[in-house]
């Protein structure tokens, strides 16, 4: 009995060609970009960089040409993302729009929404955040309370969203809210809306500082916030089904095992200065895992390319990937001869200081370890 399908795929020549092009671009653009900033990976924000990506045609790479997309394959997109992550490029401004908001609009939105929204994303000018979690609804997403009440020409939204990464920099949020009161079917009665964050009436966005001192995520409060009818995505009540598909996009990319790669690179640099058998073996183990995760992640890209549902396999890779990413600072700590600090003299200790702090979030964001394992257990037929 086969529970999962991780068929092997080779990236096609056009993906490898694009990879070289991206590599040359990044080499030039990020020549002086410090290691500690690279280690922020896709949390690094730089709207100018995103606009340059847009000019290159590297946002919405797989989307239809009629909206300005590249109509290229998921394998090409995969190679592009790998290079961006490997270089630690500051892709945070447009990352969510490219990864999940755009695809959600493409899949469930109207033609009018696609024409209105997607071109801005593709140009690297329109940024998105995710309105899912609430103060009382984290892993139990179906328990959300933010609601949309029907009024003339649209809806009035009331409630609070939290941990919305980038809300204070973004133009839009896609929010999951209740359009009917809770019923016996926990997954019924929810809908997704485009929230125009530039429309300030009834909207408060307060940044929340994380333990590393960064202000990435926010609390977003809606008080009689008006959303026009034409900004609902999909049919009323289809929100849960849509958000499940969106989460599959959120979990399926190479960022789910590459978050700590800058630390691996610095660890190798460090080990070359002070070689030891112990470090050599440990690095070998990390590379064996890295190569295996990469194969599995490419297989997920293959599923996207062949239009089969990647949700289960993506959960497996994200669970294994997060463990791997979180192990990295622990291993680096065992080999460190000096103290980690953001103001340390070496790249190794700066990167180690950053990743040590950031890593705890890797098995929380995009679905906790426990939720992912619940999905996997369902795939095994245990639930």
């Amino acid at each position, binding site marked *: *009995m086969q*529970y*999962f399908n*991780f068929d*092997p*795929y*080779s*990236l096609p020549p056009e993906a490898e060609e694009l*990879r070289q092009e991206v*590599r040359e671009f990044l080499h030039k653009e990020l020549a002086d970009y410090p290691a500690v900033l690279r280690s922020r990976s896709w949390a690094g924000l730089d709207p100018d960089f995103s606009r340059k990506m847009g000019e290159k045609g590297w946002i919405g790479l797989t989307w239809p040409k009629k909206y300005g997309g590249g109509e290229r394959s998921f394998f090409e997109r995969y190679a592009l993302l*790998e290079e961006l992550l*490997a270089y630690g490029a500051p892709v945070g401004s447009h990352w969510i729009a490219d990864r999940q908001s755009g695809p959600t609009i493409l899949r469930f939105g109207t033609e009018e929404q696609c024409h209105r929204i997607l071109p801005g994303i593709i140009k690297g000018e329109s940024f998105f955040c995710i309105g899912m979690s609430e103060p009382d609804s984290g892993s139990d997403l179906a328990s959300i309370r933010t609601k949309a009440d029907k009024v003339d020409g649209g809806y009035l939204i009331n409630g609070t969203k939290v941990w919305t990464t980038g809300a204070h920099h973004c133009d839009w949020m896609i929010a999951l809210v209740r359009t009917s009161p809770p019923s016996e079917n926990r997954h019924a009665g929810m809908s997704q809306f485009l929230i125009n964050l530039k429309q300030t009436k009834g909207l408060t966005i307060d940044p929340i500082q994380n333990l590393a001192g960064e202000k990435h995520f926010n609390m977003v409060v809606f008080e009689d916030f008006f959303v026009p009818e034409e900004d609902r995505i999909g049919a009323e009540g289809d929100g849960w089904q849509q958000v499940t598909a969106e989460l599959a996009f959120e979990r399926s990319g190479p960022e789910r095992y590459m978050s700590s*790669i800058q630390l*691996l*690179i*610095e660890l*190798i*640099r460090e*080990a*070359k200065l002070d*070689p030891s*058998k112990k*470090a*050599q*073996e*440990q*690095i*070998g*183990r990390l*590379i*064996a*895992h*890295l*190569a*295996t*995760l*990469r*194969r*599995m992640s*490419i*297989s997920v890209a293959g599923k996207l390319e062949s239009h089969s549902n990647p949700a289960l*396999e993506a959960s*497996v890779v994200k*669970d*294994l990937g997060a463990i791997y990413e979180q192990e990295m600072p622990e291993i680096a700590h065992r080999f460190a001869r000096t103290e980690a600090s953001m103001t340390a003299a070496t790249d190794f200790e700066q990167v180690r200081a950053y990743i040590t702090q950031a890593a705890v979030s890797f098995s929380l964001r995009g679905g906790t370890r*426990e939720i*992912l*394992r*619940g999905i*996997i*257990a369902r*795939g*095994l*037929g*245990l*639930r």
Partner: protein
Amino acid sequence: MNELRQIMADTVEKLFSDQVTKNLKEQAEAAVFPEKLSQAIAENGLLHVLVPENMGGVSGQFADAEVIARAVGRHAVPLPIVEQIIANYLLAGAGITPPDGITVFAPVRENETVHLKDGVVTGTATRVPWGRKADHVAVVTEEGIALVKAEDYSLTENQNIAAEPRDTLEFKGTKSLASGNLPSGMTVHSIFALGAMMRASQMTGAIEWILEASVQYANDRVQFGRPLGKFQAIQQNMAEMAGHAAAAGAAALGAFQAADLAEEGDIDSTFEIAAAKTRISETAGVVTSHAHQIHGAIGFTYEHDLHFRTRRLWSWRDEFGSDSYWADWIGGHILELEADDLWPWLTTRPT
């Protein structure tokens, strides 16, 4: 999966499902050799999968052999199947037609050297799988491959944790029946790596069986009024095990595909083999631990089928280079690169 591979998969699955019973495995551990099964496997041509057609083989690829190796692990087949596949491949590569009967290969350990000079073999090979059952041995030396007859060397019996024969062979000036070159592009070390590659796939097969048995048990066994599988603590462990099983499958397949590319002369596949053996050997401990935890006391009995796989995993993770050995090998290679070249290098590897 191509047609040949599918036929192979169906053949071995049918054969092993029918014949590799618990009784047969128990008997094998009590030194009763499964003669009939051994012959059936030979008659099906499985042992000649890597031998060219003009030498009586199938002209298959390594990825075809993978299907067999995985089934050997899945069913815990107590026979030298992958060892014969490699031996026959080596002989054919040396231009020697594989003889009838059982042929294994030696040495199987990285630090052992056996020499071949003027057709005469000298040296000691320890822990040779199924040495005592071999009619012939394909001896691997830096000078080439030599075929020797069982009566022409001395043998001391030994075994691994799973009671599989792992014997010491002493060649004291043994005259070979025939000799030839190492397969083109191969070294003594890359042949050792082939052994590691087979073990990686066998371990994957064993892990897949263990996962299925554990899920089955979790669904069947009722405690506190519900199946064990309904408890979240159990679900978490099963999910973790499933992740490792999936990683093992991906890593093992990667190694065999790389070996096929190497055979075509495109790459050196040692890295993919090393990564697979490291990744899977490392995981064996987690998988066996979770499997025995879910099975409880019944899984700790000799009566239960579980130990035929778990004891093999504990043996196989050490054989043909442990995870420590291969991780060290990978690390040595990586540390020769500049740190910033890690990623560009990795992306040149086949997936």
